[in-house]
């Protein structure tokens, strides 16, 4: 029952959300121009940092909006919440 602050609905229980993996993975503008290796990187390779992780969540049982989260994977503290399309902020304290 961690509280996650949806940018549209405010703090809500974690069970209302679904996790969407690492954030800021942009779909290649011209996928056909990529080598198999580069395309596999886009498809499968994800960071697994100890510390600050940028990831995306969806308020699945709420407003159904996707948004970005900065989370510390050690403490599970949520350091920032920001809307899709906004740049990644500096990690908070």
């Amino acid at each position: 029952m961690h509280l996650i602050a949806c940018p549209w609905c405010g703090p809500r229980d974690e069970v209302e959300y679904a996790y969407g993996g690492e954030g800021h993975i942009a779909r290649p503008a011209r996928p056909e121009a990529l080598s198999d290796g580069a395309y596999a990187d886009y498809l499968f390779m994800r960071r697994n940092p100890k510390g600050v992780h940028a990831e995306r969540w969806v308020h699945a049982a709420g407003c159904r909006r996707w948004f970005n989260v900065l989370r510390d994977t050690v403490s599970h503290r949520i350091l920032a919440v920001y809307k899709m399309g906004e740049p990644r902020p500096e990690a908070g304290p």
Partner: protein
Amino acid sequence: MTDQRFRNAAGGRIDRSRPLTFQFNGRRYDGFGGDTLASALLANGVRLVGRSFKYHRPRGIVAAGSEESNALVQLGTGARTEPNVRATQAEMHDELSAASVNCWPSVEVDVGAINSALAAFLPAGFYYKTFMWPPRAWRFYEWFIRRAAGLGRAPTEPDPDRYEKTYAHCDVAVVGAGPAGLAAALAAGRVGARVILADESSEFGGSLLGEAATIAAAPALDWVAGAMAELAALPEVRLLPRTTVFGYYDHNHLGLIERVTDHLGPRTDTTLPRQRLWKVLARQVVLATGAIERPLVFDDNDRPGVMLASAARTYANRWAVRAGDRAIVVTNNDSAYPAALDLSEAGVNVQAVIDARETPPDAWREPLRVRGIDLAAGRTVAAALGRKRVEGAEVYELAADGSRLIGAARCYDCDLIAVSGGWSPTLHLFSQSGGRPRFDAGIAAFVPGESRQAERSVGAARGTFSLAGCLAEGFAGGAAAALACGFGDGVAPPVPATGDTPAGPLRPLWRVPTAGHGGKAFVDAQNDVTADDVELAAREGYRSVEHLKRYTTTGMGTDQGKTSNVNALAILADLTNATIAEVGTTTFRPPYTPVTYGALAGRSVGDRFDPVRMTGLHQWHEAAGALFEDVGQWKRPWYYPRRGETLHQAVARECGAVRASLGIVDASTLGKIDIQGPDALKLLNLVYTNAWDNLEVGRCRYGLMLKEDGMVFDDGVTARLGPNHYHMTTTTGGAARVMGWLEEWVQCEWLDMRVHFTSTTTHWTVVAIAGPNARRLLAELCPDIDLESAAFPFMAWRDGTVAGIPARVFRVSFSGEQSYEINVPSSCGVALWQVLMTAGAKYDITPYGTETMHVLRAEKGFVIVGQETDGTTTPQDLGMDWIVSKKKTDFIGKRGLTRADCGRADRKQLVGLLPENSKDTLQEGAQIVAEIRPKPPMPMEGHVTSSYWSAALGRPFALALLMGGRARHGQTVAVSSYGTTSWAKVVPPIFWDKEGERLRG
């Protein structure tokens, strides 16, 4: 009936107006309201309460609280029986019934005690060393080991009780309602913070319930009563007695288990739940969890009658029970002195206090002398005498360095050895919160280190054992926690005066030298781990405390080593010439005490485990005798057997009706998504493999969706309702997934795309009629749509009315027959269905279920996503290259399909199979093998994905994925399933109306 001869005539916090009877091991005893099972057993002189786990040694009650390691009982009978309950926490109620565990046939005569004689052959790591060979025999060994272990029995019947879950938020959660916890709750509550105060006991007061202490020159329990009254009057304070905080998780999330009615015994009135699981999110946590007294490690220290000094004191003060007639009190610190005095006051003949320290504090000499209690300094107990109960103790002088005993034993005749090896702060929750304990040599114990979450420890939990200190830290901690939440000014309330005697330093004493006549010195009594086991582990190289724990199992019992951990690692430190700080502690994990599964499940059991979705026509299907199949959460009619029909017969009849005349099926579960916006077309072109530009309003098209890796994800028909308006259908099971998929792409990737999605699955009832008479029937009921094929061709839709109901009719077919899917508002579904059934009677209209639907579509070679595909299947594998646009520059999965692997000639491809034996329906999931061998492994080439008997073909047929299958039409392959082999001919995956004339006609 017994006389409770160890119960004093007055005193204690029991309710003497409420006498109760209970049963233990089949014998009846008396007790009082307010007793625990442990206090009532002791009052009746019952000392032998169980047998130990490995050696089946006789065991008695050691503690008075949740740290009890020995007195585990099977509580209750039948469906309500509960294993591994600590007798010290089982509140007495009338007709309580309990039995010993780990013994057969009885606790007095236990066959398993032979293990005690075999002890030399059962050292630490015995199982690892002995049962490793031969590898297959482990299953055989394990069966015996598990039976012999006998850790109580789980009930075999369904749980008759009700459990609830509740969620709460607060500013300050205070764990433990002893002096420090009460003070913290008062300080935070007085300034208006929302406070939750939880304590595992039935009464608040903590250690004060078991001590004769004074606060503000009055009995401490008067202060407790005042604090309780004040807290109860504060509107933002919630008091939770009988509530254990069992887990401390991230974000200051606490797990609490409240025993709501356990103390009332089995009840027929279930208005209140048995237990309630609380999930609490606290802005600040104050841990006032107290401390646990450590036992001393000496020979045969597990005999019934060896008890923690604080426990013996608590039994005397809280329950007016004498834990023995003749006692010695053995200690290495000051806390046992008031215990000895309280025991004496309660009428126990306390012969001596045996203090390991050379020079005990002078303050205690006079009070002991007044009571006629000897004081033996520089000495300790080295062996307990007696077997099923303590009959005496051997006391020796201890060398200055503690390494050996000096001189001859002095034997005491006693039935109670009250021991104190010092105190360990209860760090479980602190450790669970992520904090690392730090060793404090001053009190020879681990104390909380730096906080990782918004928590603070106060009082004994922090290593502050004086009452004055506990109150001061509680007040200060509560005030600070409240201030951190924006309440008050952080100034602690004034601390009342207490009657403490200042305590002197203790003498660490981890392992008393052996008395030398073969006794066992237990470190962890619950798991039967001795000091010798720890020594053996150290000798064999297990120097890390984590390895020690796993090798010897010390601290791994249901008590999680509450009394044993520090002794075990101190002995290890000694053996490895390391400091205790260097050895460190093992990790504490939730739960603090066991939590029953019923509470974790709460109401999510039986029918409430998962939602059941039913279509608007469900009751009609039920009345028609349909059997149902689960498709995701939906209940769909599987088939409609007539009297005496088997599945096979019913499906053959239903299939025959559709092919010959007319069938009707409830297709309402089909996923439906309404798509609107100027960029709707652009979106469809990106998510489907085919091109959508030339789809006119009034027409619909089949589409296939891929994941980015090129693998088939979902399929369905989408209709163009207007220039910027589409109606998408998905598979029944994939509806939510596809909706989420579309939303994710548009919200995360194509942010400027102007398109919106609305799930309309349950807005519509969808009834499909299929068969050569479908159009004739529809024409009777639908005056405003021109149904002739020229005007309303296959893969088109029209708005109109059917049976007077506004309807949207799709001319699509999943059966291969002439077919219409009639969509009407959900509320009109039953009316539509009934009109169709009545009007269709002349065509022998036949309701059919999912099984017939699957046979019909398989005869046509239509795939089902998730049956013919498994996440590694491309459109080309399915022979559906025709649906993959070559002209579109991009769609999801296009790049994935161009990987070399997707072009391999030997990929598994969809084929049809005709078994050679025309009576032989293949098993779905059966493997197609390149070579038949007597037993697996055999080289696998593919598998059967769908297999049915076809009434239309008069024979069985199947669909399969087969390596290089498209080039193998005409070959015969072997299909292996559970040891039987069938032979089948590979054919193209279409068996009915290859030209598609029937569905277009």
